[in-house]
């Protein structure tokens, strides 16, 4: 699915970094892409947390 429009070519970098909101992203991409990006962000957060917990040893 193609994205609706882009006011710049870095908006996903701004969004993943929390500089633009989910609602603002929703205005920029299709609903299908929006849902995929939300799931991706959630997955990235989990990936980060798992990497971090692995690094600092989960066993307590």
């Amino acid at each position, binding site marked *: 699915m193609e994205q609706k429009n882009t006011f710049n070519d870095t908006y*996903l*970098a*701004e969004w993943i*970094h929390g500089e633009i909101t989910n609602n603002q992203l929703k205005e920029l991409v299709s609903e299908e*892409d929006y849902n995929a990006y939300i799931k991706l962000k959630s997955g990235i*957060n989990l*990936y980060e*947390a798992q990497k971090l917990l692995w690094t600092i040893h989960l066993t*307590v």
Partner: protein
Amino acid sequence: MIKDLKNICSPKVFEIIFNTYAKDVKRFVFFKTRDLSLTEDIVQDAFVKLWEGCKGASYDTVKNYLFTIANNLFLNIVKHNKVIDKHQKGYVHEASNESPEFLYIEQEYLEKLETAIANLSEKQREVFLLSRIEKKKYKEIAEQLNISVKAVEKRMHTAVKALKEKIEFI
């Protein structure tokens, strides 16, 4: 400086929080579950959720926050077990985010994500990992790589876009 020391989104601060509270949370959860394996799952999930919500969490109340998350996770499992019990007795089982199917899909998704990250171009992966795993700001990455902030943002933008597309086809 003090603000940085209380920034839960900083890996070092998160590690301190983990080392400080993990045993207490584990003891608290084990008291409820009496199941070591389940306790470890809940403790891990509690810290994962803290990490996911680190921007909205306060360092000063993080202990209470962790205990609340752990307690809610425990209650969700109890609730889920009751739903399964009802289902086994012939009641209608409504889909739940806590269902094993959901967890399986999420693990599968994470595996796809890991593969997709590995398949990013070297420039994209470098920026992505510096930003997401090492928690560097775009400006810091730009200085480290000796490129402009705009170039870092473009690489990150294309990395996120590529991850979404790659995951769809893995």
